[in-house]
């Protein structure tokens, strides 16, 4: 029976990475994820790992590129403005098909923004962020335990698909403390015959590269990447449904917002409103299938985000016009109370007829 420890979200991510066999971390301080960087500074030497505070988030993601190219499990973390700095590096990592884990503990934006929680990096995470046709696998935890489980899973997914995996958290999850237990991941670490870790008797050099100047070659490479993404979309979408069987109104939320939404949903249920919730746990691949199924019987969807509306666009695409999709969001680091979400539920039920 695994022991439960009370841990802060940011630190739990660090410990989970170590449990997953990560021994290389390159990061830079930025609120609200600095505790993760500091935790790795303490823990990595204890497990004979490498911790390096890079000179910038740009340098850190390039150190990740280097280490990942030699075949080791490696992680970096930052928050929104720092993740913007990493976009070039992430595009290179995706183009070179390297496994790595990138943690974004989101804060309010745009620009320097604020230090309170936000969810306004959804577009950046899910739609690319960096240049070119690539995708990050994006995991969306909503508890400290999920921060742990998804961090461990992230390393396995990254290796299996040779792709960057982003853990999309937020300042609330990063700062909160909850009991967690650590379980080793399912997938065995993979051999990496492609790694450029020094030939040492290997006949042909390995080259880690994303440059393909001949358009024929670059097109083939992109087709290969898209085929990979199709496999990921077919196999790795994850979500949670609560009370959706008979629901007239389906709430859609992820991360900290899903916990507020759940409280509001319970209140609505107690008032006789048939409300359910669909919580995506992967934002890419986006769980389209349950939306297609639920939009048969539900009357409407209400999407809740700490942003001006980003995931709502993917919900609308998945629902494909079958039913109305409403939106309620807060920005700037403001977090809606369960009461205000409940009021939005009532308003949506009245307007969209989801009685």
């Amino acid at each position, binding site marked *: 029976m695994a022991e439960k420890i009370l841990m802060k979200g940011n630190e739990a991510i660090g410990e989970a990475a170590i449990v997953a066999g990560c021994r*290389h971390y*390159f990061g830079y301080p930025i609120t609200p994820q600095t505790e993760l960087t500091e935790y790795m500074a303490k823990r990595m030497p204890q497990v004979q790992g*490498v911790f*390096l505070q*890079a*000179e*910038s988030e*740009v*340098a*850190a993601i*390039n*150190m*990740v*590129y*280097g*280490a*990942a*190219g*030699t075949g*080791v499990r*490696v992680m970096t973390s930052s928050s929104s403005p720092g993740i913007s700095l990493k976009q*070039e*590096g992430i595009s*290179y990592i995706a183009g*070179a098909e390297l496994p790595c884990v990138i943690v974004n503990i989101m804060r309010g934006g745009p620009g320097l923004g604020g230090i309170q929680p936000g969810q306004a990096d959804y577009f950046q995470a899910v739609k690319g962020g960096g240049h070119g046709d690539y995708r990050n696998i994006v995991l969306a935890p909503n508890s400290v335990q999920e921060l742990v489980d998804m961090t461990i899973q992230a390393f396995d997914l990254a290796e299996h698909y040779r792709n960057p995996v982003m853990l999309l958290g937020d300042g609330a999850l990063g700062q909160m403390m909850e009991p967690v237990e650590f379980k080793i991941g399912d997938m065995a670490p993979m051999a990496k015959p492609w790694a*450029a*870790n*020094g*030939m*040492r*008797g290997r006949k042909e*050099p*390995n*080259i*880690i*590269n*994303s*440059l393909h100047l001949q358009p024929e070659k670059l097109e083939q490479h992109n087709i290969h990447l898209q085929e990979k993404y199709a496999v990921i979309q077919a196999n790795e979408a994850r979500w949670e449904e609560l009370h959706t069987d008979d629901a007239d109104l389906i709430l859609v939320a992820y991360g900290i917002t899903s916990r507020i939404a759940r409280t509001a949903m319970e209140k609505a249920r107690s008032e006789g409103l048939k409300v359910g919730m669909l919580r995506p746990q992967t934002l890419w691949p986006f769980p389209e299938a349950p939306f297609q199924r639920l939009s048969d019987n539900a009357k409407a969807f209400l999407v809740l985000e700490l942003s001006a509306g980003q995931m709502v666009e993917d919900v609308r695409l998945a629902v494909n016009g079958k039913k109305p999709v409403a939106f309620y969001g807060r920005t700037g680091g403001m977090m809606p109370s369960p009461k205000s979400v409940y009021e939005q539920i009532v308003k949506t039920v009245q307007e969209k007829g989801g009685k």
Partner: protein
Amino acid sequence: MADKIFARPQALKDVAFHYCPGCHHGIIHRLVAEVLDELGITDKTIGVAPVGCSVLAYEYFNCDMFEAAHGRAPAVATGVKRSQPDAVVFTYQGDGDLAAIGTAEIVHAAARGERITTIFVNNAIYGMTGGQMAPTSLIDQVTNTSPYGRKAETAGMPIRMSEMLATLDGAKFITRVAVNNPGNMAKAKAAIKKAFEIQLQGDGFTMVEVLSTCPTNWGMTPIEAAGWLEKQLITYYPLGQFKVPEEVAK
């Protein structure tokens, strides 16, 4: 190769270089490859190529190679060396890569004393993109983005990277050489060899700045370019050692 006095080093693949006629990249690549051969380290060497004319360097060396984003090679090399400490790691960078966009990365790799070797090819111009001004372009030098000649009032003075990096304690061996004549070439090779030897000893950051020609974008023949380098570049960028490990200095 018992029947040959001189032949291609093993660490250099037998493929044609894409470089312009008379470009010194070919010479510098070969010197690095000769050093890898002579030290017997090719099998555990990992190189990091830049963005610039030598972006395709990863196709020429017979060892594991990385292609890095513009300026980021020292950070990539840091990730490589920290995860493979017994490998020999080098970066190969031009003046845009190292002295413009990558200034933070090279300064901090040197400051941290990363056990990597940087080959810095300084030809005072941006070659790959067609001849724009570099941070190391000389005053009055005409380039595509200094068509009236570089003026200090608008573009500042050229940067002497070797002298600057030598002020960092983590930098153990910083030297400037050239390959525009046989005498300079021999010294350049000796410097490159010493830089790799210091890395093998586990000491800190080493860099060899190699003044080079860019005949195409300087608008000269290769022979004229070698002469311009001697008269103009070496005057502003003196050859010599700016940092040596303590033991050698004694």
